[in-house]
């Protein structure tokens, strides 16, 4: 019994069902919509958490993958009439395969250099979407809703189930991955590349794989986002999105994958509680991020755990 309770399959299930319970209990479309956004953010943040927390590779270009995922899936389903689930999958695969362009510089670059290279990637995507995306800076709409066979998902509650189910599945997968020998190798990448090389680990394939996985989750979340809101404009895919993801991962706790959902829930609901300061959200974000980096370096999760132990 005890083993069962401390199992991460069980933990994911608890997270999933409590989110659903919350959604069905409150039954407010607005609240549910925010929960859906939190789920999408959690999925994106999970990608970044794998990259940053596990493998120690910083990426400030996640907004690029989020945007590519959304745009490709929207265009595939809108212009080529590809069924939505297939379009979502295709777009996630296509856009994450572009992450090879980040993984190869990441072979040679570390720290600040990698940060700026990925920042440059995200910014290029953002500029291209503005220049050549359908509708240019003002965006385009009429993107089909998510449909599976005959069932079309219309109300936020159905998206709540879909998004959080997908998140929980990948969350469990990611935790399995972190505990596998592959995950341990990735953690070693965080501390010493030279040691790994001497042990005969293929750094190239290791880095390419983790970059693809990380950006796959973010692209997938972008594609789901497109079919949920049915309207896209480049403004949602600026560098600020990457910074938000960064905040989620850092605030939640970089050393644990649980940081992604906790941080995503926190950051997504933050603007709602700060509604009176809506205009000055950047200021508040800046304050929170700076303060948490200096005082709460290990994240909310670590903080809570310590509190419980005391």
């Amino acid at each position, binding site marked *: 019994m005890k083993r069962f309770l401390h199992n991460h399959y069980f933990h994911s299930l608890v997270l999933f069902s409590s989110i659903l319970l919350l959604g069905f209990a409150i039954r407010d479309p607005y609240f549910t919509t925010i929960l859906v956004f939190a789920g999408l953010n959690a999925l994106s943040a999970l990608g970044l958490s794998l990259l940053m927390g596990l493998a120690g590779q910083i990426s400030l270009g996640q907004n690029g993958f989020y945007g590519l995922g959304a745009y490709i899936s929207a265009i595939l389903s809108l212009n080529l009439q590809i069924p939505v689930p297939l379009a979502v999958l295709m777009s996630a695969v296509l856009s994450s395969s572009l992450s090879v362009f980040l993984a190869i510089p990441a072979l040679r670059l570390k720290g*600040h250099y990698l940060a700026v290279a990925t920042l440059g990637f995200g910014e290029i995507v953002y500029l291209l979407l503005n220049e050549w995306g359908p509708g240019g800076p003002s965006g385009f709409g009429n993107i089909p809703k998510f449909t599976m066979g005959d069932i079309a998902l219309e109300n936020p509650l159905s998206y709540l189930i879909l998004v959080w189910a997908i998140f929980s599945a990948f969350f469990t997968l990611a935790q399995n991955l972190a505990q596998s020998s592959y995950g341990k190798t990735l953690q070693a990448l965080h501390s010493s590349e030279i040691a790994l090389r001497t042990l005969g680990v293929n750094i190239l394939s290791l880095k390419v794989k983790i970059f693809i996985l990380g950006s796959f989750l973010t692209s997938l979340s972008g594609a789901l986002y497109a079919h949920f809101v049915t309207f896209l404009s480049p403004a949602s895919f600026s560098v600020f999105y990457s*910074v938000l993801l960064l905040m989620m991962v850092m605030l939640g706790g970089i050393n644990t994958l649980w940081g992604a959902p906790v941080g995503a829930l926190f950051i997504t609901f933050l603007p709602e509680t700060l509604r009176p300061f809506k205009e000055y959200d950047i200021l508040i974000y800046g*304050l929170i991020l700076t303060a948490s980096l200096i005082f709460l370096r290990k994240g909310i999760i670590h903080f809570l755990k310590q509190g419980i132990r005391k």
Partner: protein
Amino acid sequence: MELFLQFFFSGLTVGAIYALIALGFNIIYNTTSILNLAQGEFVVLGGLLMWYFLEKIHLPYGVSIILTLGISGLVGLAMERLSIRPLLKTADPLLLILITIAFSILLRGILMFLFGKEPYGYPPISEGAPLIIGGAIIQRQVLWIFLFVLFTMLFLYIFFNRTIFGIAMKACAIDSLSATLLGINTSQMVMVSFILSGIFASLAGVLVTPITFVEYDKGPLLTIKGFTAAILGGLGSNWGVMAGGFLLGILESLIAGYIHSGLKDALALLLLLSMLLFKPAGLFQSSEQARLRKL
């Protein structure tokens, strides 16, 4: 030919701004190995403060410049004291990158809080008809920009070669451990480097605002451009990164003029990515040189 000259001069102007930002990058990088990703925000800070002193409380031009640069230096100091110093000991590069990003968001938020979202501008240093050289029209402000950049170079040369403080800072950049053993206060040098880089970036803002206007969210793109310039010239050498700035400015202006203006920013980013991929040491130094500078 006239067209080319026109593009060339406007490229030099933008390049001068990039050069100043890149210089700020380099000074901090040399003493701490940190890339201060808040650099662009300091440019915006310079422009907005200058507007405040000049247009809001009507101080004379010279006084406004001095006050603006002074305050920007203080903000640089505050940044180092509040955010960099507590984390420098942990030496976790990820944290140090994140803290400069965090500070840049904070600074952007404060600027929006104080100045709002509107673009600001003010008259150039000296009014008068633009000059015409070889058919190209040059605003008078451009000449002032060149003058100030020249002053900056002169200052750098004297500071790093003729003053004991500058030489100590150079020693710190080459090997901070040996510098500490020689009795140089390295943490003081880190502080000074943040002040200097804040001042240079804000000088760029002060100079360029009469030409292009400034608003609170211009920072991130300027950061990337300044960084591209620094990479192009090769981080480590003050002269290299300044040359990189001018080169980037001219390339951008030619692309925008002859091909397509929308490609201007994308070019800078592509250039950045390909430099990082193929020659991270920069155009003007070999990879051995760069490695000696702990790249």
